[in-house]
């Protein structure tokens, strides 16, 4: 870290700097405390937790709770662990993220480069999707899924998440493509490229930063969703979040806190992974277009 780096806008004295770091460290400790509690307790035997001392490091280190949470814990009535639900979530998230991102990109492309009458009004209406609370649509959506024969299926969940996600992804891509030079589209038209060829060959390859934003946003939201999962999923299509709830809320037997902690971390890992892999592109993508390079 270069203390006197040239792009620091404000110069500060040594004392102020120490104070700033002190405050930052304190806040990050405070922020990381729950994670610490989860991690240390997930690798302890149960009696160490029930004996008190939640903040202590484990005396006996064990990965048993993790294995149990993954493959043998009682979820509902079956002792399957979280693993089948993890794959349910993957089967739901991957297509939902992919479809909503591609559709958002397509919408952004049409709304900026194939302008038509009332397109801004249409875009404004699409933005409503970002502001409608989930609870409002539960009953009509259940009815629609029933009519379409998708009730209780993974495909139904994918549809729900795609519909809800399009508002956001369209917003991202529209604003990104608004500053994409229209002359490029015209050049491609003269070159003989059609609507989809321009999209696939010219526009999408230049959309890296905003695609990352869209994927992270959608992945996090859909993976973490509980309400739609709990409302629309069938027994064999429940996502991870619902299964975690069933694990923790089990009303019989001993409460295995170490297994619960391990399960909760397992449920949070994929979003964490996405952030770690693509996170640095996230801010870059959000800033894209705002400053001319």
């Amino acid at each position, binding site marked *: 870290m270069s203390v006197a780096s040239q792009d620091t806008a404000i110069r500060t004295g040594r004392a102020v700097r120490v104070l700033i770091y002190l405050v930052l460290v304190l806040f990050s400790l405070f922020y990381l405390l729950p994670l610490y509690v989860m991690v240390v307790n997930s690798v302890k035997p149960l009696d160490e937790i029930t004996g008190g001392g939640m903040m202590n490091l484990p005396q006996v280190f064990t990965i048993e709770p993790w294995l149990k949470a993954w493959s043998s814990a009682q979820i509902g009535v079956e002792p399957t662990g979280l693993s089948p639900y993890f794959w349910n979530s993957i089967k739901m998230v991957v297509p939902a993220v992919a479809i909503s991102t591609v559709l958002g990109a397509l919408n952004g492309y049409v709304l900026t480069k194939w302008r038509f009458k009332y397109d801004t009004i249409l875009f404004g209406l699409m933005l409503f999707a970002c502001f409608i609370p989930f609870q409002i649509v539960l009953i009509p959506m259940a009815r629609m899924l029933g009519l379409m024969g998708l009730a209780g299926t993974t495909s139904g969940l994918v549809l729900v998440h795609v519909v809800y996600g399009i508002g956001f992804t369209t917003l991202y891509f529209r604003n990104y493509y608004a500053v994409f*030079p229209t*002359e490029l589209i*015209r*050049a*491609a*038209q*003269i*070159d*003989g*490229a059609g609507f989809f060829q321009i999209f696939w060959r010219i526009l999408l390859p230049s959309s890296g930063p905003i695609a990352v934003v869209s994927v992270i946003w959608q992945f996090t939201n859909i993976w973490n969703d509980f309400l739609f999962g709990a409302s629309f999923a069938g027994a064999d299509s429940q996502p991870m979040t619902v299964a975690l709830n069933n694990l923790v809320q089990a009303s019989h037997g001993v409460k295995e806190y170490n297994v619960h902690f391990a399960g909760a971390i397992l449920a949070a890992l994929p979003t964490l992974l996405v952030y770690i892999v693509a996170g640095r592109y996230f801010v870059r993508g959000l800033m894209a277009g705002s400053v001319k390079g």
Partner: protein
Amino acid sequence: MGFLDIDNTTKSYGSTEVLHKVDISVEEGEFLVLVGPSGCGKSTLLNMIAGLEEITSGEIRIKDEVMNGVHPSKRNIAMVFQSYALYPNMTVGKNITFGLEMHGTPKDERDKAMNDVAKLLQIEQLLDRKPGALSGGQRQRVAMGRALVRDPDVFLFDEPLSNLDAKLRVDMRTEIKKLHHKLGTTIVYVTHDQIEAMTLSTRIAVMNGGYVQQLGTPQEIYDTPANIFVATFMGSPAMNVVPAKVSVENGVPMARVALHDGSLTSLPFSQANMAEWDGKEILLGIRPETITDEDAADRKSGNIAHMTNRIVVTEPAGSDTFVTMTMGGRDVIARMRSDANVSPGIDFMFAVNMEKAVAFDPETEVRIAP
């Protein structure tokens, strides 16, 4: 019928007509420049030829085929854009061959065409680079390569040099002219720069407010501008336009023009028909280079008039010295040799080549002589 016909073409957005009945016929191999201030409709007209904007009424034909409603890619045209519009995700080579690929040309033919064009434009060493790694001049060449490789009927250039710095612009101008000589293709070129228009074109269409003000060779446009707008737009410094009164003295029509102190001088017209304007007000147009000192006056001219006027400002510009004086209440600029013995504040005898003078009707601003 020409090679490219723009026939009574108009363009409207809603109820506003931005282009009024444009009529231009371009012969094969011609270099037509559309020039005018921003908002005059020149780019709109070019986009209509390209098929990027619809034609509201009238017809555009290429090789006698009506192009109204034909997709841009089916018109056999190629266009060079102001921002070059190179595809940022493709290499230079891909950029050049993308159009061929879209038209279904086989790979080996594409590569051959690409290499030919790269050789012609001397960009062979750039073929594997991305546009982001190129300088402005190199991007310009690639953009031209992309247009050339298609071997189109008509080339369209939309202000292709305006993003380059001054020196490179002059170099590329020469380059484009050389290319036109070598290939002999038909070119329509849009610019707001009148020097580009004069140097490049075989014919110029001067546009303003959605109208073609004048269509002609550079020499015609320069020597006999159709109206005041063309006269003052083309040429740098602009043509001097001063109010004058016509009076016939001894059978010769004269322009009576007020000098710096209000006294009148008589400048004889070369055109006898100016006698019809006897006693009437006109606007007299005199190019700066036709006002000189006695020694530099054009010896071939049969009509050199003299006048003594006070010099207000002198601006030495190396090769020439620009001298400002007052005529008819307006600033008038004379372009003198750099060694002319002039200085501000003195009364100096100027020689005016009246053979080159132009007269305009002050009401309609249309040229009445020659």
